[in-house]
């Protein structure tokens, strides 16, 4: 197995860990952390393809990861503010109970 394939296997497994967490955990904070893990897995792919790609001097992969990290920071800030707002309304952060708008 080549190093590139190893990197890709790492990132896909990380993505799946995040996916399982998002699907199966009810705690809003853990769901957010799962989404962060999935973003990180995507970043690993960008760096791996930059490292083993045909044009490493272009640096596009690195720049994409920088933007992605910034977007992840924004996502975490807004997401956790939402979690705190949910907590203020229903005194817990279980996503299954956040059904205020359900008819």
């Amino acid at each position, binding site marked *: 197995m080549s190093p590139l394939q190893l990197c890709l296997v790492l990132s896909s497994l990380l*993505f*799946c*860990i995040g996916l399982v967490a998002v699907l199966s955990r009810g*705690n809003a904070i853990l769901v957010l952390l799962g989404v962060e893990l999935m973003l990180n897995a995507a*970043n690993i792919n960008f760096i791996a393809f930059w490292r083993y790609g045909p044009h490493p001097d272009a640096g596009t992969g690195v720049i994409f990861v920088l933007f992605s990290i910034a977007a992840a920071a924004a996502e*975490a800030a807004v997401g956790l*503010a939402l979690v705190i707002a949910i907590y203020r309304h229903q005194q817990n952060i279980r996503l299954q109970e956040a059904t205020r708008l359900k008819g």
Partner: protein
Amino acid sequence: MTFALILLSLLILGSAAVAMALRNLIYSALLLIGSWAGIAGFYLWAGAEFVAFAQILIYVGAISMVVLFAVLLTKQGHAPEPVEFNSVSRFITGLIAGGGVAGVLLGAILGMPLEVRTAGTTPTLTVKALGAQLMGPHTAALLVIGLLLTVSLLGAVVLASDERRDQPEDAP
């Protein structure tokens, strides 16, 4: 080289998996920080120095703090989360979905003949070159991400702030 990569992968995957399975949120967050630091180690391994330090600075320094503050502000710190009645079925569903995705992805990766650049040397990208790229072809994206960060900061403050505003008791 490959050995270091395997060690890093085990660290990243192991701490992420255990973090997602634990019921104590503080432990989850701390283990996940270990996983993020491992990903920074992977970037260092791949030769992307700047991204590795940015990852540490933003994930370990900033996002982790926001997560830990959120855990404490929602009083999830000490008592482990209660087990819910339908959690087992949801867990099995999630596991099936995640395992399916993992199978598809792994099959695709292992079955694909990937062309690898034969030169084994780590590509070097100096900070100066990176800066020139950012301010050259990617200026528009840089402006957009700056705007996005500002808006999301304001949005987070508005969302999390309490409507019942108390007067500061003793202004200097």
